[in-house]
């Protein structure tokens, strides 16, 4: 431990310091606008540190006795979270007037949650995983209850109760994994499981080779399913999305989901990456993927509220990402192990641009109309042409049509599934994409084909407009030329121990 550890962990430390600074500045001055712009500028520091670390690519990535591993995988997500946090903070500039009184705390809590996510993406040890998971969830629960309405408190309460139950399940699973292997570090768990397999300690008739490990992994995955918004822990999603403040919901749907997938990828490949275990959890995720996306899509069909619709949409998108988790090929020929996680990471990055474009567009429109129903978006193509266009680009990307990043993400995920012998899963994914067209296109139809309810123009705030524009531009750019992002995702995934080694 020493200077090297601090340098490696500097993005996370900078983010934590920024969160504290935001709180202190708010306490001292009470000027929420100042806090907002100050922390927006401050976000440059963790981003710059992450880029510097990515470029330096130190050989020894373990920090603080192996508690975290700051490899390029975690740096990729660190950059992603920083960007998402910046977009969310910008989007709250006008929206914050609806909060009860704590406008300055909004920024501090978003940054605290981002710190948790950055730690989660680099956590290499069970205690760190649990603590950073809670650091991610608790500020978001508080933020969901920030609005004056009862719905907001209800959303926060539901989120908190389900988060508590799921973290108890996760902990119980982690305890079994710890009890079975006698260590909390993921790389040591991998080695211990290898020893046990070599010494014949595994029973091939039991899933995962042992009931202890079966229980541990199953409970831990149930706990993480809450974060991923995957079945069977998706019940909180629509309620939290409908009731919570829209910027927080955008943060939840993009960053929180990415953090969940990052930690699940790391646990699966670094701790349970041995081929015998991979076959088992691959089958588990294949089933979860089909259930999640079908459930999300079918429930989204009758929705009238756009935020609730996006809640179900986020469930179905989680289902598509789970396909990438399931796509681990049994025959470990070179490179085939990379395709599955690479497609997930690419999907997550593309989804961040796409969903931010959608949510920021929704915020830009509802800030003025204060109407979250689909009918409230009627005629926005004429009333707010730029915003409606950006929102439509986001929706088309969610639907997965070219030339957007959503199309490319789905191609890569389905491709990875077919290459690992899961063609039926890819087929289920394609069918679900077709179903999802109905509800995404309904919003676009309302904006462009229906008569507006009033003639008042809705102007776009410059800061929010720039953020939405960047998000929509990214969604198109990486749809036309995905190679840069795809390469970055590959480098990130290859730095994950357990992927590159085989």
């Amino acid at each position, binding site marked *: 431990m020493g200077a090297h550890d601090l340098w490696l962990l500097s993005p996370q430390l900078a983010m934590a310091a920024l969160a504290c600074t935001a709180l202190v500045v708010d306490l001292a001055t009470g000027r929420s606008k100042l806090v907002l712009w100050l922390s927006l500028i401050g976000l440059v520091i963790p981003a710059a540190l992450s880029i510097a670390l990515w470029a330096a690519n130190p050989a020894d990535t373990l920090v603080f006795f192996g508690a975290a591993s700051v490899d390029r995988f975690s740096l990729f997500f660190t950059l992603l979270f920083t960007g998402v946090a910046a977009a969310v903070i910008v989007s709250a500039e006008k929206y914050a007037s609806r909060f009860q009184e704590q406008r300055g705390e909004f920024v501090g809590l978003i940054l605290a949650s981002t710190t948790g996510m950055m730690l989660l993406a680099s956590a290499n040890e*069970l*205690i760190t995983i*649990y*603590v950073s998971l*809670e650091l991610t969830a*608790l500020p978001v*629960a*508080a933020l969901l*209850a920030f609005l004056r309405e*009862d*719905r907001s*408190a*209800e*959303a*926060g*309460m*539901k989120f*908190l*109760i389900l*988060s*508590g*139950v799921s*973290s*108890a399940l996760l*902990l*119980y699973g*982690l*305890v079994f994994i*710890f*009890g079975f292997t*006698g*260590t*909390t570090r993921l790389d040591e768990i991998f080695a211990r499981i290898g020893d046990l397999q070599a010494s014949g300690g595994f029973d091939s008739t039991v899933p995962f080779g042992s009931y202890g490990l079966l229980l541990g992994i199953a409970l831990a995955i149930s706990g993480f399913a809450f974060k991923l918004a995957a079945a069977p822990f998706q019940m909180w999603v*629509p*309620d939290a999305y*409908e*009731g919570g403040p829209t910027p927080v919901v955008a943060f939840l749907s993009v960053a929180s989901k990415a953090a969940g997938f990052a930690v699940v990828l790391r646990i699966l490949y670094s701790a349970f990456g041995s081929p015998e275990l991979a076959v088992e959890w691959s089958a588990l995720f294949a089933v979860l993927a089909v259930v999640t996306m079908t459930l999300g899509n079918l*429930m989204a069909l*009758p929705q009238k509220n756009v935020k*609730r619709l996006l809640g179900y949409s986020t469930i179905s998108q989680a289902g598509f990402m789970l396909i990438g988790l399931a796509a681990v090929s049994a025959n470990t020929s070179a490179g085939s192990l990379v395709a599955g996680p690479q497609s997930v990471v690419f999907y997550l990055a593309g989804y961040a641009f796409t969903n931010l474009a959608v949510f920021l567009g929704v915020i830009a429109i509802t800030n003025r109309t204060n109407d979250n129903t689909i009918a409230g978006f009627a005629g926005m193509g004429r009333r707010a042409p730029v915003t409606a266009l950006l929102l439509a680009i986001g929706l088309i990307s969610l639907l997965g049509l070219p030339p957007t990043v959503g199309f490319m993400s789905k191609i890569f995920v389905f491709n990875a599934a077919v290459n690992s012998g899961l063609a039926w899963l890819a087929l289920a994914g394609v069918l679900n994409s077709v179903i999802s067209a109905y509800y995404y296109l309904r919003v676009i139809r309302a904006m462009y084909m229906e008569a507006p309810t009033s003639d008042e123009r809705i102007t776009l705030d410059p800061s929010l407009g720039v953020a939405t524009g960047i998000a929509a531009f990214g969604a198109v750019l990486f749809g036309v030329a995905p190679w840069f992002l795809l390469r970055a995702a590959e480098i990130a995934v290859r730095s994950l121990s357990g992927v590159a080694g085989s």
Partner: protein
Amino acid sequence: MLELVHLQVLSAALFSIGLYGVLARRSAVLVLISIELMLNAVNVNLIGLGAFADRPAESRVFGQILAIFVITISAAELGLAFAIILKLFRSRGSVNTDELNLMKW
């Protein structure tokens, strides 16, 4: 004598009681107490593993460290939950979870 398996059975029983409480109780306060019961069931298991498992001492101590973190975080979680419950109670006059039904489907 007392062995690891006894603690694990106790922990599993506590966890199941807690889970039942979460699913069956109406009052939000009792739901939170049930979540607390689940977390404490985990703690019993963790400390049991630390005390009985035949592992080297430096790896056994991790169970106890995790237990301390669980206690701390559950306190923070409860504090937040009660703040939200208070907010709900002020406007609704009730803390029953089956009345948290402004949003459905």
